[in-house]
């Protein structure tokens, strides 16, 4: 393949990956999925009933893998069996995945707060009505972007895996990245804006999440508004980096040309990893210098 076209394809995949990362993180913030949801689930038990959407169908990677695999399978069937165009097939596939995700979210929302009725946690129907559309919309965008990435890999880059499996793998990866990066902004910062900035959450504060919003009582959409400022784009950056860099090494050093160039792609990858390690060390040193050792706030609850 012409290297310039290859780079263009890779740039498109990287852009789709950034969008997938952002929408994945926003979906998990609106619906409160994954690790920080442990606090949303815990809050009523600590006598802090709230109006935050509570789902956590499963961990983010399996949940995203499921919806991307549904999207990929539907798209593959429509393309192969009915001969539909790729764009229509992928759009319909993403729509079917969003519907499936919406039904899981609804079931999960009814199940989780209901189990806490003994702690006086109400099931708010207006929260369900207001949140289910953004959850499904974000699920649609994520699935669409992931299936687009998988489709480009198969049709242009001739990847040997079937579409559904590739969508499943990238869905797992975007979920793993979203739950490792963006969730920290939601869990450690947004949920605990009532504690001092610049510290991890004291174990004694567990469950004491902020329940007042910028106006009125806080809900999942308020959380998504806050986290889209940093957590969402950072998730997009991480997933975009993964898709772009892992494809870049085999695009620039094409293994099909010769054995030597194939090994050059491995060396290029190891150099990228080395740069990542050095960069990580640099930001660690800079944080130690600028923040200094931890100083306890006397007003805070001691563990």
């Amino acid at each position, binding site marked *: 393949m012409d290297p310039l076209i290859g780079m263009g394809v890779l740039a498109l995949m990287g852009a789709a990956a950034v969008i997938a990362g952002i929408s994945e993180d926003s979906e998990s913030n609106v619906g409160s999925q994954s690790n920080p949801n442990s606090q949303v689930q815990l809050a009523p038990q600590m006598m802090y009933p709230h109006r935050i959407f509570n789902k956590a169908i499963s961990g983010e990677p399996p949940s995203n893998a499921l919806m991307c695999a549904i999207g990929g399978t539907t798209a593959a069937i429509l393309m192969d069996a009915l001969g539909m165009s790729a764009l229509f097939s992928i759009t319909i596939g993403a729509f079917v995945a969003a519907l499936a995700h919406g039904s899981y979210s609804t079931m999960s929302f009814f199940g989780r707060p209901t189990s806490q009725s003994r702690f006086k946690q109400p099931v708010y129907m207006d929260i369900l009505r207001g949140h289910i559309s953004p959850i499904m919309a974000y699920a649609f965008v994520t699935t669409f972007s992931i299936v687009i990435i998988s489709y480009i890999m198969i049709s242009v880059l001739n990847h040997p895996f079937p579409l559904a499996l590739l969508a499943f793998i990238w869905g797992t*990866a975007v979920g793993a990245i979203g739950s490792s990066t963006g969730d920290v902004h939601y869990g*450690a910062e947004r949920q605990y804006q009532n504690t001092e900035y610049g510290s991890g959450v004291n174990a004694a504060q567990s469950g004491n999440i902020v329940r007042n919003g910028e106006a009125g009582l806080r809900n999942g959409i308020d959380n998504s508004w806050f986290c889209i400022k940093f957590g969402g784009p950072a998730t997009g950056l991480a997933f975009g980096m993964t898709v772009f860099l892992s494809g870049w090494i085999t695009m620039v050093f094409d293994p099909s040309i010769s054995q030597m160039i194939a090994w050059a792609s491995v060396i290029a990858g190891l150099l990228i990893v080395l740069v990542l390690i050095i960069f990580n060390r640099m930001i660690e040193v800079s944080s130690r210098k600028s923040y200094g050792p931890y100083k306890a706030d006397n007003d805070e609850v001691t563990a």
Partner: protein
Amino acid sequence: MIDYVGLMADNLLYLLLIVVGGLLVAIGVHFVPVGGAPAAMGQATGVGTGTVQLAAGAGLTGLVTAAAVMRVADDMLLVIASGMVGAMIMIGSTMLVGNFMYIYGVGVTPASGKVKYDPITKDRQDLYLSQGTEGHGVPTSCYISGIIGGGLGGLGGAMVYFALLSVTNATTALNVIGLASILAVAIFFINAVIASYNIGGTTEGFIDPKFKRVPKAIVASIVVTFLSAIMSIIIIGGI
């Protein structure tokens, strides 16, 4: 009727490769610093997600890269090296951006709660811990441990895929690719779960005292991967 004994005898080398690959995955997962839900709240060192999930994300990314290389090259070393690099890039990017979150989003310094000094950088850790937490972020030792873990996971996953794809069969290449990829993912998850049970929640990688439990995981992984390998070879070789 499938000739089971003949099938195994023909693919003995691949059986061995699958077991070694699975073992590498199980060992690799022990290196990945994961803090689970507490890490997402800045209460524990490591990446804020589950062991299996992060390792699977990294290992499967490696599998995608390995498969792309294997389409054009049949050198086993090259394929597994590509798988290793793909997984290392994924886990490296994730941990780096994770640290962005801790440093710029939460305002904490990466610090380990298990050791007083970072064994690689010799930086003091305990002074930087927030009150009531067991650490936060991914300090350099944990970062390098994660890179090693991701690399071993990718290496193992790619080795399993390579072996499964090479099993003697009487079906089309497309069918074998489909089966081999799904079975490779399955063997990957099985081994990641074994490691996850062994770790029991959170770990900081090779600096964590729980790392000493690796031998137990090795035994469990060999037994389970051996059985999985036999079934996988029968599935691919039998059709």
